[in-house]
C-alpha cells in the first residue's frame, strides 16, 4: 500500500500525503476548484477554521467508510482520508452556503470600499464579488469603532475587521512578543492592544499584509493613492536583519515608491515576511535592486490602464542595465 492518499476534488483526482487538509489538496490541483479562504494562512501555524468561507461537501468519507459527512466541513481544518470525494464548486449546497457566509461576514463590515486603502487587493471584496448577493438584508446599525493608531506606522480600523485572527497568529509566531489580541467575545469581540500601546517590533508591519480586509493598514500609504494607479515592481535589497531576506514588491507611482509590501502569491498570502526597515524606511529607488515588473493577473484591477509594453516604467529610464534590456521598447515608444 502506498503511503499517499488518493482524493478526488470536484472529480479531479490527486495524490497527497496523509495529514494534508482538503484545502491544501485542492491547492495542489489549483485553478477554480480551490476553496476561497479568509482566515487560513499557510505560513501561520494554527490559522483557519474561523471564517467558514472554505466550506466544502464531502460526498464520500473514505474508501473504508464511504458514507458522506453529514454537514459541510471547513476544508482548511479537515484532513483528507484515502478515497475521499469532495465537492466544491460542483455542489449547489456549497455555493449557497458560501453565499450565506459572505452575507454574514458583511453584516458588520462597512461598505466603504471607495475610501478604504485595501480596495483593489481586498480578499473580502473579491469574495463578495464572486460569491455574494448584490444587496444586504441587514437593517440595523453596523457596529462602529474609532480608529486606533497602533504605533506610528500601522492604523487599526476595527470597524472593518472580520476577526480572522491572522494578525494575532503573526504577532505570536513572527515577532517575539505579542501585545495585541482579541478582547471580549461574541459580537463584542475586537482586536485591540488593551491599553493603547504601540505594536513596536521589527516584524510588526507584517500584520498589514496578512490582514485580508482593510482593518490594519499602512499609515505611510494612507490615502496616498489607489492601488490600481500604482505599478508593482519586484525588488530586493541586502537586509542585514536576520529573518528578513529583503524580497519585496515596490508600488510605484511615477518615480516615487509609495508603498513596500511583501510578495504575495496567487492566494494572497505572502511568500516571505519582511522586516519593518524594508517596509517603512526604504522608500527610495536607490535602496533597491529592481528585478522587473510584477506579473499581475489580467483579471485584476491592478493591471487596468497599465501599458508596460508601450511605456517602460520611469525607474527603468535611470538604470543603464534595464535600459539596455528594454531597448526595443524605448525605440517603439519614441517612434510613436
Amino acid at each position, binding site marked *: 500500500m502506498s503511503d499517499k492518499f488518493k482524493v478526488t476534488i470536484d472529480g479531479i483526482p490527486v495524490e497527497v500525503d496523509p495529514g494534508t487538509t482538503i484545502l491544501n489538496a485542492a491547492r495542489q490541483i489549483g485553478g477554480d476548484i480551490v476553496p476561497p479562504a479568509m482566515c487560513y494562512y499557510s505560513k501561520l501555524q494554527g490559522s483557519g477554521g474561523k471564517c467558514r468561507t472554505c466550506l466544502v461537501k464531502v460526498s464520500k468519507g473514505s474508501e473504508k467508510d464511504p458514507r458522506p459527512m453529514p454537514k459541510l466541513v471547513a476544508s482548511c481544518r479537515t484532513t483528507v482520508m484515502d478515497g475521499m470525494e469532495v465537492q466544491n464548486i460542483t455542489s449547489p449546497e456549497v455555493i449557497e452556503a458560501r453565499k450565506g457566509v459572505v452575507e454574514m461576514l458583511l453584516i458588520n463590515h462597512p461598505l*466603504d*470600499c*471607495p*475610501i478604504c486603502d485595501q*480596495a483593489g487587493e481586498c480578499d473580502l471584496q473579491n469574495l463578495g464579488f464572486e460569491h455574494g448577493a448584490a444587496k444586504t438584508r441587514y437593517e440595523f446599525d453596523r457596529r462602529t469603532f474609532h480608529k486606533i493608531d497602533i504605533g506610528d506606522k500601522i492604523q487599526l480600523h476595527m470597524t472593518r475587521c472580520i476577526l480572522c485572527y491572522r494578525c494575532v497568529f503573526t504577532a505570536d509566531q513572527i515577532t517575539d512578543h505579542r501585545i495585541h489580541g482579541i478582547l471580549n467575545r461574541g459580537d463584542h469581540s475586537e482586536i485591540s492592544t488593551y491599553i493603547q500601546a504601540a505594536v513596536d517590533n521589527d516584524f510588526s508591519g507584517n500584520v498589514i499584509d496578512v490582514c485580508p480586509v482593510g482593518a490594519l493598514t499602512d499609515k505611510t500609504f*494612507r*490615502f*496616498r*493613492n*489607489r492601488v*490600481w*494607479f500604482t505599478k508593482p515592481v519586484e525588488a530586493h535589497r541586502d537586509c542585514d536583519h536576520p529573518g528578513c531576506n529583503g524580497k519585496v514588491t515596490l508600488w510605484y507611482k511615477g518615480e516615487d515608491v509609495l508603498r513596500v509590501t511583501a510578495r504575495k502569491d496567487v492566494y494572497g498570502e505572502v511568500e516571505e515576511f519582511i522586516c519593518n526597515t524594508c517596509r517603512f524606511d526604504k522608500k527610495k529607488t536607490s535602496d533597491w535592486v529592481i528585478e522587473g515588473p510584477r506579473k499581475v493577473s489580467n483579471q485584476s*484591477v491592478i493591471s*487596468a*490602464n497599465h501599458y508596460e509594453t508601450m511605456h517602460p516604467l520611469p525607474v527603468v529610464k535611470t538604470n543603464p542595465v534595464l535600459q539596455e534590456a528594454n531597448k526595443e521598447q524605448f525605440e517603439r515608444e519614441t517612434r510613436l
Partner: protein
Amino acid sequence: MESLSNKRKVIESKPLSLWERTYLPAVVKGLAITLKHFLFRKDVTVRYPEQKREFSENFRGMHSLKRDDEGRERCTACGLCALSCPAEAITMIAAERKPGEENLYREEKYAAVYEINMLRCIFCGLCEEACPKEAIYLDGDIVPADYLRKDFIYGKDKLVEAPLNQ
C-alpha cells in the same frame, strides 16, 4: 450607353432669346425667392451665445461635482472615474478630512485636487456610471472655447457645484 439609374437629364442647349439675354426674368425670380425667405420664413439658426437651444435629455456636457443635501462634497476620491475613463482625462489627489471639516466633505477622505483635461475628455459618461457616490454628472453646458491648452485642465474651482446657501 443606356443609363443605369434612369436619372439622366438630357440638356437642350438652345441659344437664349433676346428677353432671356437681358437676364431680368432670372434676377426677378431669384430676388423673389430671397425675399420669401427673408420676410416670411422662420430662421433656422439661433443667435448662439445669447440664445441657446434646449439640449436633449441625455446630452452630456461639462462635468460637475455634486454636493449632498447638507452641502457637503460627495466625492471621496475613490478613483473609479479615473479608472473607467477611456481617455485618461481625470486625475486626483486624495486627502484626509480633518476634524471640524465634517460640514465640507461627506466622507473621511476627499479629493484635494480633482482635475479633468477637457481636451482629452470624450464625454462618454463612463465616469458618471462608475461613480459609487453619485458625485459626478455630465449635466453642464458645452465646454467653452479657449486659447491655451492649460486653461482646458479644469480643477475643483470650475467643477464643484456652488454651495447651497448662495
